[in-house]
């Protein structure tokens, strides 16, 4: 293979994409607040997500204080404890991770990486953010409503979510939670349409699907999944609101509560579980696929080597996305459904391990004999691979019905999903921020603070969640406010719980270092220049840093090559940007 076609005229593909008319803001308000620029919207999404995520972090501290030192903190009673775990879970999964990966990274990276000037429907994109903000406000309002937020657990299973024994069940809590979810989903749909259609229609000339960076593939596939999966949560939330407000019996069976027969009868709680997990399982991959994509780019860039098995990586992303719609009932092995279903869903669950394992092998093989720079993004990327592998392996345990039944609702499950969809994606979030912060702000984040942040977070996360597996294997149930003098629970569990809580407090505090770094570097960080990581993808080739409104100068970029031309033999530098026309005399061996 030779890097030069016969003439330059040949290499310019036909104009697939017409230049778009941009909306030009006229005032400060429409430029920075009610902005239609995807980059501003991305920052708005990220700041809001991190703010509400910080609330969830504090809640996790309170949860751990109770579990580690039961009885010491009188302001945490059982009701509060349940409210904390519910809000912590819901915020982290939906309002932080989903919003950040799709609304934050999606908005910032998709137009820049595919070479577009902006999202295709900027007005809907703006509405998407404001609905998200409204959803967050409604959610937070739960803390101030009479009775407090709902304490039903993040899965919101009826009937307990709607009965008076549950905090917020007969008060405002559950109503605000369901309303907030409905608003979030409407807002997300507006944003999601943008992310998908921009990838389909807005790509620059020459940017074929197979030349897209894996980040875009990950976010694109995750958005398609989210668009099809969130309606299930929407339906569940609407029907539950009907049950709560209008007295219907979609999910509520006949119940005697405090000696009083409730009006409902015949409703099916299992139906709710089906709807919830029909959304809930794809949701795991809605969070994971963008992380997969981003981490692939981080590893390739910082190991100065092309991603191993690009095609396999793309196919794996698509296959995982498709399979994740037919595994939902593995969350319901103990719900009393037909055992034959369990067999089917266990099989599909274990099949997902195959494309996922392909991805892990390919990341490791990309690192193999690469020129590994242990920069902050690379550290977090490696931290992700290890953590994800770890959490994935316990997933194989839990995917099997016979192993899952005794482990159901124990701390083992908590440890598993925190590893695989808590710590692992958050590692990628941090890595991605250390990687792209220079593009967003024009300044580098501080290296020393970043290393402190990484090591405490990484080691600390293991200090928290490794022992938790053991606690779960012993049989400690999740969601319990306190364990008391339970016979089968050895004293070592209490010691471990204290240890975990101390570790959690330290890891939480380490995030303040990160927060400080974000703010401090904004003003005092080292100037980054346009392409500090010497990366190939289009977002690093913008004429200005931070990119101006419209992203590109007068002309849109033209893409000549894939996103991973690192260390090409004979090339003058160890990276060739995607918009670099073919160079004379450069030959390459078939990979």
């Amino acid at each position, binding site marked *: *293979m030779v*890097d030069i*076609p016969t003439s330059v005229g*040949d*290499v310019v*593909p*036909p104009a*697939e994409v017409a230049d778009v008319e941009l909306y030009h803001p006229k005032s400060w308000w429409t430029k920075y607040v009610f902005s239609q620029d995807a980059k501003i919207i991305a920052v708005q999404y990220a700041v809001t997500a991190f703010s509400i995520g910080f609330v969830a972090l504090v809640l996790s501290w309170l949860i751990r204080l109770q579990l580690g030192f039961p009885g010491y903190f009188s302001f945490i009673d059982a009701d509060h404890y349940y409210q904390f775990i519910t809000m912590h879970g819901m915020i982290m999964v939906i309002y932080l991770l989903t919003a950040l990966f799709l609304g934050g990274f999606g908005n910032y990276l998709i137009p820049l990486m595919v070479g577009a000037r902006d999202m*295709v*429907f900027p007005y809907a994109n703006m509405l998407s953010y404001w609905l998200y903000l409204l959803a967050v406000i409604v959610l937070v309002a739960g803390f101030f409503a009479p009775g407090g937020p709902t304490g039903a657990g993040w899965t919101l299973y009826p009937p307990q979510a709607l009965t008076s024994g549950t905090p917020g069940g007969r008060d405002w809590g559950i109503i605000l939670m369901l309303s907030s979810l409905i608003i979030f989903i409407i807002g997300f*749909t507006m944003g*999601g*349409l943008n992310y*998908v*259609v921009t990838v*389909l*229609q807005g790509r620059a*000339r*020459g940017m*074929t*699907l*197979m*030349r897209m960076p894996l980040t875009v593939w990950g976010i694109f596939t995750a958005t398609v999944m989210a*668009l*099809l999966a969130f*309606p*299930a949560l*929407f*339906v569940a939330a*609407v*029907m539950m609101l*009907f049950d709560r407000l*209008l*007295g*219907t*019996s*979609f999910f509520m069976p006949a119940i005697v509560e405090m000696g009083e027969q409730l009006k409902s*009868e*015949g*409703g*099916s709680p299992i*139906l709710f579980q*089906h*709807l919830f997990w*029909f959304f809930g399982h794809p949701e795991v991959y809605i969070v994971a696929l963008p992380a997969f994509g981003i981490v692939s780019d981080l590893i390739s860039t910082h190991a100065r080597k*092309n991603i191993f098995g*690009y*095609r396999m990586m*793309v196919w794996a992303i698509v296959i995982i996305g*498709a399979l994740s*719609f*037919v595994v939902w009932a593995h969350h319901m092995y103990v719900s009393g459904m037909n055992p034959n279903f369990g067999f089917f869903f266990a099989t599909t669950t274990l099949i997902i391990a195959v494309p996922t394992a392909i991805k892990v092998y390919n990341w490791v093989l990309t690192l193999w004999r690469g020129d590994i720079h242990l920069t902050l993004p690379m550290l977090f990327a490696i931290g992700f691979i290890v953590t994800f592998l770890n959490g994935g392996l316990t997933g194989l345990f839990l995917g099997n019905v016979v192993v899952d039944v005794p482990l159901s609702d124990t701390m083992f499950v908590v440890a598993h999903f925190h590893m695989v969809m808590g710590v692992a994606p958050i590692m990628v979030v941090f890595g991605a921020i250390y990687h792209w912060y220079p593009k967003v702000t024009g300044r580098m984040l501080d290296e020393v603070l970043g290393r402190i942040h990484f090591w405490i977070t990484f080691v600390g996360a293991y200090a928290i969640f490794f022992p938790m597996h053991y606690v779960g294997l012993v049989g400690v149930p999740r969601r319990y406010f306190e364990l008391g003098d339970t016979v089968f629970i050895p004293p070592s569990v209490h010691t471990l719980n204290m240890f975990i809580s101390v570790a959690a407090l330290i890891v939480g505090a380490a995030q303040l270092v990160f927060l400080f770094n974000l703010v401090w570097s904004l003003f005092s960080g080292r100037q980054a220049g346009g392409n500090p990581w010497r990366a190939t993808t289009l977002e690093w080739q913008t004429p200005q840093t931070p990119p101006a409104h419209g992203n590109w100068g007068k002309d849109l970029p033209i893409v*000549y*090559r*894939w996103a*991973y*031309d690192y260390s090409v033999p004979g090339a003058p530098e160890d990276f060739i940007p995607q918009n670099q026309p*073919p160079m004379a005399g450069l030959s*390459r061996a078939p*990979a």
Partner: protein
Amino acid sequence: MSVVLVFLAGIAAIVIWWISGQRLTSKPWMEVGTLDDIQEPAKPPIPTAKVGLGIFLAVVGALFSLLASAYLSRMGGADWWAIPIPRLLWVNTAVLIVSCAALQWAVVQARRGADDGVRLGLDMALATAVLFLAGQIVAWLQLVAEGYVLADNPANSFFYMLTGLHGLHIVGGIAVLARTRVRLLAGGTVSARPRLGIELCATYWHFMLVVWLLLFALFTGWANDFVDLCRQLVS
């Protein structure tokens, strides 16, 4: 959850068809700046708004197929008594079909460049759509007057919720349609952009008609017979 799985299988078929034309087996690391991966498009590219609407309809389709799944699943409960279908619903269905036909006629007129016909078609479509909504509300009132209230029975609950959600989608459609009509108010001619708008409205209208027909089949119980038939075929 069978309905939504069938729906997703349909989506999957479309995705596979689309993806099979995207050269996902190409080797991008070997193809630098060569022409063979991008040919001159044979036909003009699909307008972005059209793609956007298509994906939006997929989301709406997922929403209603999930609701249908929930309906069929809850239907097995012992406390389920089917709601009687008011005669008015047949009239409403006819009105919605007329609305669709009027809009389709407007599309044809727009392609011909007959502005007066377009305005007439849009007015007809708008008026019949509003009539449909009014009819749905009257049907609700009739049922309530006969004592079939929302919370008495899951069949009633589903009926009101499904017709309500469908009605909300029609309301949204009417808003967009009205905006398209206002653009033509000043007596301007139908240029490319409003023509696309009318076509998109028509697509949305046809989709909502199909959704309504399927919901109607659910309410009358035909869908149930059909599902039973499928179950027998499978088992």
